[in-house]
């Protein structure tokens, strides 16, 4: 399959996951979109994909987001909208029990350290395997498993507090 066709397919499947990972890094929807755009552009310009295509695309988005974040830290002074989850949903009044749980979970995820957050998002939203996540973030498999485990532990702890 030609790289451009492959990337088009991957983007269709992973647009939400790629955007969420970028958003978790830059915490600004417009910049996150720029990061996804830059990443896809870079991959298309390169013309080839090394290794796992999904992991490669996530890695590209992550790198682009970090590049933009470095620039933003220098240039931006205005406050940013930093929520990963839908703000309309999180501010919804009269939440049911299940929604309350998810609401608490959303808050808990957003308070996680970024390195745990991206692993959880790649896993839960992007449906990536641990090997793919390791390739995407350029870390050993053990590190990925450890970050995931610590992230889930933190979420579980938060949920237990909500349940009590």
């Amino acid at each position: 399959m030609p790289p451009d066709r492959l990337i088009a397919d991957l983007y269709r499947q992973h647009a939400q996951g790629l955007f969420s990972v970028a958003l978790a890094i830059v915490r600004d929807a417009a910049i996150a979109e720029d990061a996804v755009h830059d990443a896809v552009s870079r991959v298309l310009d390169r013309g080839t994909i090394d290794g796992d295509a999904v992991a490669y695309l996530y890695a590209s988005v992550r790198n682009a987001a970090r590049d933009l974040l470095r620039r933003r830290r220098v240039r931006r002074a205005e406050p940013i909208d930093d929520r990963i989850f839908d703000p309309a949903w999180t501010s919804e009044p009269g939440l049911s029990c299940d929604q309350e749980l998810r609401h608490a979970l959303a808050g808990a995820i957003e308070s996680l350290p970024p390195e745990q957050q991206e692993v959880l998002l790649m896993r839960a939203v992007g449906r990536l395997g641990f090997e793919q996540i390791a390739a995407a973030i350029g870390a050993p498999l053990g590190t990925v498993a450890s970050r995931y485990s610590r992230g889930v532990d933190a979420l579980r702890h938060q949920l237990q507090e909500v349940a009590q």
Partner: protein
Amino acid sequence: MNDHTSSTTPEDHGRDVRPAVDAAIERLIAAIPLRRPSGMLDVRIGALIERHTHPWWKRAAPIAAAAGFALAIGFVAGSWMSQGRLTGGESRTQLPALPTDGGTAIDARDARDAGLNMVLRDSSVRPAALAAPRSIDLGEEGALQAAESLWIRTDRFHDPRRGVTIERSYPETWTLVGAPAAD
């Protein structure tokens, strides 16, 4: 039955249930409405992919090919394979072969007393010959003398000796302009 063998420690129990809890948490995370990218991102990515799938030089290629083909056909029809014909009087005299000039070959020609009938074929492509008019010497008997300046791709020839001017109107018709000088 030894109870000890079937009992599980809290740590064992934790290990057993942990994957299920992790999976449940993953499902919960996936169920939380995420902020979605705007529709503009899809448009931007679509445009990016389109540009890479069909870059400008690929989009222009069929047009360039068609234009090139048309130019080539026009070039060939207008010069290499073109024939010029000068028509005139009654009698016909077959002339000896004419010298060629560089890439110009004249493979057939006739001369008539009251005029000339010649068939010319240019065997080469000489872009410099596009300039017109050019002069040719039609000779004593109306014979076409291939002068240095004879290039078939010109549209207008002039024979200063006979005062004859030949004009070509595309594609293959040559017209004698003005009467040839009387012998």
